[in-house]
């Protein structure tokens, strides 16, 4: 994927930054490729330029934020079920 796990090399934060910027560059390249090569689409909205890119980004952020909200709802201490289990003994 986007990083080679070579021990030591990743410990340097600058290298990590480099990887991240590399990732952004590849993303940009893909948008350019879509412009140049073009693609098929089945539904109306899907045909818009950069639909998949935007979907990927937005959906991801949406999921993460939704999950954060969910966490507020469902989070319990790790021992939540344990006392229950003990009592049933």
């Amino acid at each position, binding site marked *: *994927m*986007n*990083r080679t*796990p070579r*021990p*030591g090399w*990743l*410990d340097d934060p600058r290298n990590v930054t480099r990887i*991240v910027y590399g*990732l*952004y560059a*590849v*993303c940009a390249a*893909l*948008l350019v*490729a*879509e412009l140049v*090569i*073009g*693609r*098929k689409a*089945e*539904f109306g909205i899907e045909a818009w330029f*950069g639909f*998949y*890119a*935007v*979907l*990927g*980004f937005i*959906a*991801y*952020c*949406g*999921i*993460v934020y*939704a*999950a*954060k909200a*969910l*966490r507020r*709802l*469902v*989070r*319990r*201490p*790790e*021992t*939540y*079920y344990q006392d*229950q*289990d003990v009592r049933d003994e």
Partner: protein
Amino acid sequence: MSDVLLNPGLVLIVGAAGLPLLRGRAQQLYLLALPLLALALLVRLSFGERGRLSLFGLELVTIRLDALSFVFALAFLIAAVLAVIYSWHLRDATQHVSAVIYAGAATAALLAGDLITLFVFWELTAVASAVLIWARRSQASYRAGLRYLLIQALSGVLLLGGAVLQHSVEGHIRFELMALDNPAGWFVLLAFGIKGAFPFLHNWLQDSYPEATPTGTVWLSVYTTKLAVYALARGFAGTELLVWVGVAMTLFPVFYAVIENDLRRVLSYSLNNQIGFMIAGVGVGTELAINGAAAHAFAHIIYKALLFMAMGAVLHRVGTIKASELGGLHKSMPWTARFCIVGSASISAVPLLSGFVTKSMILAAVAEDGRWVAFALLLIASAGVVDHSGIKIPFFSFFAHDSGLRCREAPAGMLLAMGLAAALCIGIGLYPQPLYDLLPYAVEYVPYTASHVITQAQLVLFAAAAFSFLYRRGLYPPEIRSVNLDADVVYRRALPYGWHTASRAVERLRLTAGPPLRRRAASTWVATTGPLRPNGRLGTAWSTHLMVWCIVLLLGALILLTVR
């Protein structure tokens, strides 16, 4: 009669009996030989029905081999070989025996041509796999295993009920496409739904898989749910309901996976979500969709096993699998990390890997069928897959901040199994045609079009970019030790809690009227089961007085009730 024994599943089940007799190296070799033998038998077996038995006038077809069952059986047995290699280091005959029986039972269930045979092996998978959970020998795993076994047994009972109903309504017990216009179909669908982890029936999966042994989870991840996918594809292909069940299944586990701390539980949620894709495909039910579901199941078995193997290896070496305690392991376990990344990329459907060539078939089938809402929701779920399985699993275990944990690389057997699985992932991704040739229907689908590659790469990489963006801004939810409520809260907490609350309310009501009910509420369980306990009113040795009294009462009751 004798061709009953040609069943590859039966080879495993019967062969497992020999395991406890062997020790050491001989046991290992025998263990490896069993799935290979079954594989050879499966490949040499021609399509058709055989192994007919007659039981109380019921016609059983114990082996029905056709394209659909063949592709699943092949995947099951390949996975069995991998899992055996993976557990090469293990010296625990109990686990080996139950794992092999489990694999054999699942394979035999695939081949079942009637509901009774299916039920028999359906229950056998449940019992054998429960042992894999118990084999971890902790209190938590014991309780989780018990819950697992109960719900699996319930599934079996429902299936049996469906079989009986079908026999009484339609007069046969063949397992073929079923209709939902009679109760038999609903019973069977519910049975399959439990094993397939439908929403609200799913919780046994996330509850039990993380409690199994490191190797046991690998076995578990392969069989139970995929058996359900197969059964649904066989019995309920094209059922509209399943499309929406599938879509729901792809979506809701995603959120849980983001905030879950136990990485094997993350994988369990991810497993649930992947099953959703397959079930949606089954629900669409076109040739392309069924092909997609089968192909995706095949690929999924391998990369999901690979991911569980990697996490199992970490658990084996480090002793914990909580994301909040891991990190930086790529220095200690470089090969495990690499294989894990291959698996993660596969499940995220990165081009050139197996997920890419199979999942897209399902999406294409959904789109072709004109279901754009489902299509959009599945795309969103795909972005979620990138998060929890594609990034979260490898990132928090092998990278992220260095937790300071240092350990040895995984044992050779584990590495070999992971390597083989990774090679299969890459092989299928690069050269999908052999897999396509195995599928139930002729395949015209071409995965590698420029359009497809670009769109999929955009989806995946922009999702990854979003992750790096959020993570570096500190917006990504941190890993926290916690338990997250799921549907299991209903039976693990809400029901008992509701009971306590309700009884406390009643107590408050009656506080003025009589003695406090609080103690009674607390000891309700004791009170209801008390009479049954060895010293309880019913369970104790009755006095002769009471016994004689019972006889005479029965006599009197009978005279009054019956004689006229």
